[in-house]
């Protein structure tokens, strides 16, 4: 029972990190109709920058710089590539983000090499126990920060003028443009927000129990894709639910590995994709995604 609860808690904390990434993914999709395959390498960029800068700048400044770098990279991608392709088919847009991803990821992997870069989190690798359930401090803080950020985001999304503008342009871009909403600005801001969220996720993703920044972080980041798809690509609430579900599933599958041995070692890493395919079989637009209607 204790093991189960512990897995549950750890799964939720991992899920909170996934939710941050998936949320960025969904925001980008809503604002610019792009499925950003760049997201994995953006996250790795954030992690790498934080790890490299924390030596000269100290932890706090390095984190801020890392977030700024990730956001800037996202902004550049939006300004120089996505914005020029407004109205292009969704597949072309997805492919162009894959192109960016190839370049960015190749450069980062080249720089990181086989090393594992350490991020000196001030909270270190210690665990805390809550009623007999163990969780690393890093994950606990991640859960709190993610919760606060997500709540902030939802409030902003609902009430701030940016949120209203974004929802309007996601609903009907042309009408929103006629109402004086600047699509380019909405889209750029969405990419920046997504970049920041990815940066925050990166900060916690490379902390304990993960050993540090290595090229394997990219694979972890990719597991947020199923989270976004699972919840429904155009649903911010779905991203949250999807992230938590994926985190839970992964943590449980990894925890009960011994009982699941017939599925092979390391099945936990594949579980997000299995869950995603299973959900999509039943609900092709994800749990909370809008069903595409075709009017003839």
């Amino acid at each position, binding site marked *: 029972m204790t093991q189960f609860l512990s897995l549950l808690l750890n799964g939720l904390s991992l899920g909170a990190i996934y939710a941050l990434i998936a949320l960025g993914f969904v925001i980008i999709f809503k604002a610019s109709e792009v499925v950003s395959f760049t997201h994995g390498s953006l996250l790795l960029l954030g992690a790498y920058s934080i790890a490299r800068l924390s030596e000269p700048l100290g932890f706090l400044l390095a984190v801020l710089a890392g977030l700024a770098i990730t956001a800037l990279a996202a902004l550049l991608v939006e300004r120089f590539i996505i914005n020029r392709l407004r109205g292009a088919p969704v*597949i072309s847009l997805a492919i162009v983000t894959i*192109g960016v991803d*190839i370049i960015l990821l190749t450069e980062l992997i080249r720089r990181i090499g086989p090393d594992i870069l350490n991020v000196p989190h001030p909270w270190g690798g210690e665990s805390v126990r809550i009623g007999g359930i163990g969780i690393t401090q890093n994950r606990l803080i991640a859960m709190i920060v993610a919760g606060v950020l997500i709540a902030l985001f939802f409030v902003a999304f609902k009430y701030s003028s940016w949120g209203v503008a974004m929802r309007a342009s996601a609903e009907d871009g042309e009408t929103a443009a006629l109402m004086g909403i600047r699509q380019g600005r909405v889209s750029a801001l969405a990419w920046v927000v997504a970049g920041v969220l990815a940066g925050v996720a990166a900060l916690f993703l490379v902390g304990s129990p993960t050993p540090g920044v290595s090229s394997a972080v990219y694979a972890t980041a990719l597991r947020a894709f*199923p989270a976004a798809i699972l919840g429904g*690509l155009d649903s911010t609430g779905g991203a949250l639910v999807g992230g938590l579900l994926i985190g839970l599933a992964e943590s449980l599958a990894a925890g009960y590995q011994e009982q699941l041995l017939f599925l092979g*070692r*390391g099945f936990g890493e594949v579980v997000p994709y299995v869950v995603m395919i299973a959900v999509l079989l039943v609900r092709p637009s994800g749990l909370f995604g809008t069903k595409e209607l075709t009017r003839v």
Partner: protein
Amino acid sequence: MSEQTVSRPAGSSRAGSDTPARSGRAGRGPGTVVKWVLIAALLVFLLVFPLYFDEFWLRTGFAVFGAAIGAIGLNLLVGTTGQLSLAHAFFLAVGAVSYTYISGESGGLGTRAALDGLGLPPIVGMVVGVLLAGLAGLVFSPIAARLRGIYLGVASLGLVFIGVHVINTWTPVTGGFNGRAAPEFSLFGFTFGNSDPQLWVLGVPFREAERLWYLGLVLALAAYVFARNLLRSRPGRALQTLRDSEVAASVMGVNVQAYKARVFLVSSMYAGLSGVLYALSIGSIAPESFTLVVSIQYLAMIVLGGLGSVGGAALGALFVTALPLLFQQYADVLPLVSAPGQGGVSAGFAARFLYGAAIILIVLFEPAGLAGIAQRLTQRFRRGRAPARGGVATPPPEQPGSAPTPSDRPAQGSDTR
């Protein structure tokens, strides 16, 4: 953009002065003659290639042939039908693993685990590998057919990870983490290996590389011709309509689900064959040969070549496959590229930078890819040449009516099947 639906009308309306060349529907003018001469020259070049080039080039060539088959298959799915799929590496893996399992021998793998194998003739392994890959595609197609556009892209991503996990886990069949050697190919007693029977052609020893070159050439040509014919046939038109609008397609009487399932079947069979050739070309299979990177490489090939163009896919395969190998071979001559372990940019990385950038540039500036560039060049060539031939630019009045004829024909005769 498919060559045949676009090129004919565009070619005939733009090159207005080119009346003689357009006179017959099949185009028996000088332009076509040039085209056929070029094709024949290319074929002859490919046929005599092994007589003049050494093993490195032949091996590279074989890898390119294999990749071209896979790229043509993916292009049918992504370019022609508009179904973004990142699962191609998975289907490649199905083909490669099936071939290795069916034609491989049982035996020990060091001290760790025993390998199973059916030991059947390689040609059986190849055929069954292709069929099993097709079957895998068919099994996935109900999911695929329900998913719209981008959802499919990400869902197919999952298949790749599941595939790699299975290869890692299912050691008796796949060799697990360390992989296993792929059996040599042979056809009715003729082995595609180094010996047995010794073969000399025009004083050149025909060893494994030379033999495989011809195998790859024949298979790639067959794959090319099949895809071209498919695109020109009724199903091909149906697939293109599907890409442009599913609603329109279903209104026209195209069974959307059935066609999606079929194109998945065909595309994954291509991938299966490509996987078999890959196993032959490397000589072994391992989990890292079928990761997401591979799927992305195939996507890069068809984007660079030009979505929907069969020839473009082959060109893209040449570019993406040969580039890292060439960089590796000439690392010491090329600027900026360095041998592995020397700091600078290694060959594999350099190639990836290059095709990553190429993807972005192509999508931004030339969505029709290399095929589009080639087409524009030939058009310019024709236009530039026409006045020199003495042809006065007199657009005949019947031209607007005559232009759509070729593309309309199949649709009119479509109710008799």
